[in-house]
């Protein structure tokens, strides 16, 4: 088993809320589709934000094997933001050449290839605002993969999507995992549907790990830690 994210004794408090995460220990495995589940306010998104570096000032250790691609929760600003699909996807390459003024040729080629793989290349000139919710998530996943094609971290990628579209997103992630050996770490509310596709489940309750193991065991109720 190869670990891509190793978290040791991670604790985190917001100024307004104490102990959102309490001494968390988890390892995320390479090439697996892992889903973090838990009630609202359990600390799932906080954990992701610590991993991708948005939450500073935690105690404990987070070691990440390589760079990760990130898909944050949708923001209100994006609902009527003028941007083409190409502009959004290409922006994902920023972390590869953070100090250059323009995009490099490699970045453009990478973005084009990923857009082709995710089936959005033909509509790349279209505006992000004119897309359906499912297509928008596809674009944002492509953007995350422009940062790296090894590990992506997604925060509620199917929030607000209808069940059919959500299923398509999971199927696409499952396919990417199998074809490219992509490791996926996702936070989701959508337990019933999402867990059909995931290998591992991490359940958080009040900032503590309640379950960490195979999806199959989780669903049958065995092996609870």
């Amino acid at each position, binding site marked *: 088993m190869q670990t891509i994210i190793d978290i040791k004794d991670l604790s985190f408090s917001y100024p307004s809320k104490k102990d959102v995460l309490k001494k968390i220990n988890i390892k995320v495995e390479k090439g697996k589709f892992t889903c973090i589940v838990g009630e609202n306010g359990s600390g799932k998104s906080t954990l992701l934000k610590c991993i991708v570096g948005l939450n500073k000032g935690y105690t404990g250790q987070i070691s990440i094997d390589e760079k990760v691609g*990130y898909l944050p929760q949708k*923001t209100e*600003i994006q609902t009527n933001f003028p*941007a083409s699909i190409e502009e959004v996807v290409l922006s*994902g390459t*920023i972390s590869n050449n953070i100090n250059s003024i323009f995009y490099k040729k490699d970045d453009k080629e990478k973005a084009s290839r990923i857009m082709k793989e995710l089936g959005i290349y033909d509509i790349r000139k279209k505006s992000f605002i004119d897309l359906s919710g499912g297509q928008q998530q596809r674009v944002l996943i492509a953007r995350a993969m422009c940062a790296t094609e090894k590990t992506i971290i997604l925060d509620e990628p199917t929030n607000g999507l209808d069940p059919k579209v959500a299923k398509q997103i999971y199927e696409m992630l499952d396919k990417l995992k199998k074809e490219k050996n992509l490791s996926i770490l996702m936070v989701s509310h959508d337990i019933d549907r999402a867990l059909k596709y995931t290998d591992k489940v991490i359940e958080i309750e009040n900032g503590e790990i309640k379950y960490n193991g195979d999806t199959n065991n989780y669903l049958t109720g065995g092996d609870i830690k």
Partner: protein
Amino acid sequence: MIETIIEMIQHSFIQRAILVGSLVSLCAALLGVSLVLKRYSMIGDGLSHVGFAILTIATALGFTTPLYIAIPGVIITAIILLKVGDNKKIKSDSAIALISSSALAIGVAITSLTTGMNTDVCNFMFGSILAMSESDVVLSVIVSIIVAILFIIYYRKLFIITFDEDFAKASGLKVKKYTNIIAILTAVIIVVGMRMMGTLLISSIIIFPALTSMRIFKTFKKVVISSAIISIVCFLLGIYLSYIFNISTGAMIVLVNLVLFIIFTIIDKILHD
């Protein structure tokens, strides 16, 4: 028409105004795209009022170059205002409204106590192309060129930060640094532009070109290019019409912008029906 234009540009004050105005309009419009998308449309209004307050104080204290004093003061205000945006307890729109009206009140109170409401004050409020001195022109040109160059250098990062701040942070961009750069540039452009456009009207050249462009164009690059063109066209048309009809330049520029906004809105409706 051509004769009028030739007659117009004989005047050295109009030459100065055209040079400074085109550059300032362009920069304001470029910054405006980011500010409008980030829901900071009102920031120009707030900052110009603070600029007005500082100018009146500086004038009352006898400074002959109040512009140089106003710039740092307005920069500090801009940084504070954009910081407040991160604070969930105070909404940034109410913070801007608060600072904006208070600053205006301070400015008006000081002028009442000192010079009284004379033409100078009127020029501060509504702008005047005659108000530009030689040194103002030099300052405005230098500042505008710096803003335009920085915009091009940071264009890619600005897009990412405006579109998705969390993604930008996770990608390793120093979001705060760039937000501060935007704040500083906006502050500087407002101070150099308010002499011509006036305290009450300067924010329009920041928001109008972006809003107008967004009626029709739906990609970031097109919106930026269109805003840049619109800002200069509206400025030149505004100054021409103001010369012909003898209407305040600032007001005329805003009106041209308004008309173009309405035209773009109608075109958008026609295209989408």
